[in-house]
């Protein structure tokens, strides 16, 4: 494969000029000083454990989806005159942010929450509003989706 022929001439000239500039600048980088600095930092700076970002993001996405769905479901239940199409407004958000397993687990969790819900009458439900058993069901759903993904 001929790399030079892949770059059009009008770009090649400019790239060569930029490369010449880059070479001059890179030539001023002292590799020994960099090595000493890197080794010093490796010796002295503590190792920071990276949090399980994927779990966190998955959990946040599931939690956000649950809040959206629960809120939407309760609004619909308390407003019978409202056309069912309104429920669908939340679904594209869920389908965009969750894979099929996560969406299924979320819907199961919502089903369980709704089955347990006999007294809630507010139209807005936040995580803080959930009972211990509801929170446990939510966490269980989040864990199962994380382990499965």
């Amino acid at each position, binding site marked *: 494969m001929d790399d030079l022929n892949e770059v059009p001439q009008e*770009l090649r000239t400019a790239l060569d000029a930029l490369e010449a500039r*880059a*070479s001059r600048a890179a030539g001023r980088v002292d590799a020994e000083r960099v*090595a000493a600095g890197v*080794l010093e930092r490796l010796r002295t700076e503590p190792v920071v454990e990276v949090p399980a970002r994927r779990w966190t993001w998955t959990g946040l996405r599931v939690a956000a989806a649950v809040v959206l769905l629960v809120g939407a479901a309760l609004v619909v239940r308390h407003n019978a005159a409202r056309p069912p199409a309104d429920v669908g407004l939340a679904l594209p958000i869920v389908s965009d942010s969750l894979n099929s397993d996560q969406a299924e687990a979320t819907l199961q969790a919502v089903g369980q929450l709704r089955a347990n819900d006999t007294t809630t009458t507010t139209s807005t439900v936040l995580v803080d509003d959930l009972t211990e058993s509801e929170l446990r069901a939510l966490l269980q759903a989040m864990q199962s989706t994380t382990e499965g993904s």
Partner: protein
Amino acid sequence: MGVLAEAVVADSELIARYLAGDEGAAAELVRRHAEPLARFLVVQGAPDDELEDIVQDALFKAFRSVSRFRGGASFRTWLLTIGSNALKDRRRTWKRRQVVELTPDVADPSADPASEAEAGWAAQRLMEGLGKLARLQREVFVMRAQQGLEYAEIAAALEISQVAARVHYHHAVKRLKAWMT
């Protein structure tokens, strides 16, 4: 001949030695890769006055996570992606400082002033154009056009398909050509 050929130790061997506690192996890897990494960063817009810091930062991060290096791409290519991330982190702190102006002291004093000025303009123009590309387009273009990497290597390092790498390169060239004319 009287000259003993010096055995070149592979990067993978140096990485293994470093992981076993040999700091000298890490220093050797830095000597090998600091300069190409610096050239890569300059083309992507790293300013001269912070270049060594960014190189050091990228190498430090690379060694901190080298146990997770899987070898899908070469150590060099993997390091370039870490360098790109280090540069991106710096950019967040620069706010509006998107493109680095060429300063008089970076010009080659031995060159003809007129041609040097023209080359300087072209280099600056290209750097501006690169700064306007989407990140993946820029990285694929620089890895391919400057570093001469194969698409398979680029794709492995950036965790994209080879087809996607080719598409990004094609779009980068198209946009840069339009920008330069």
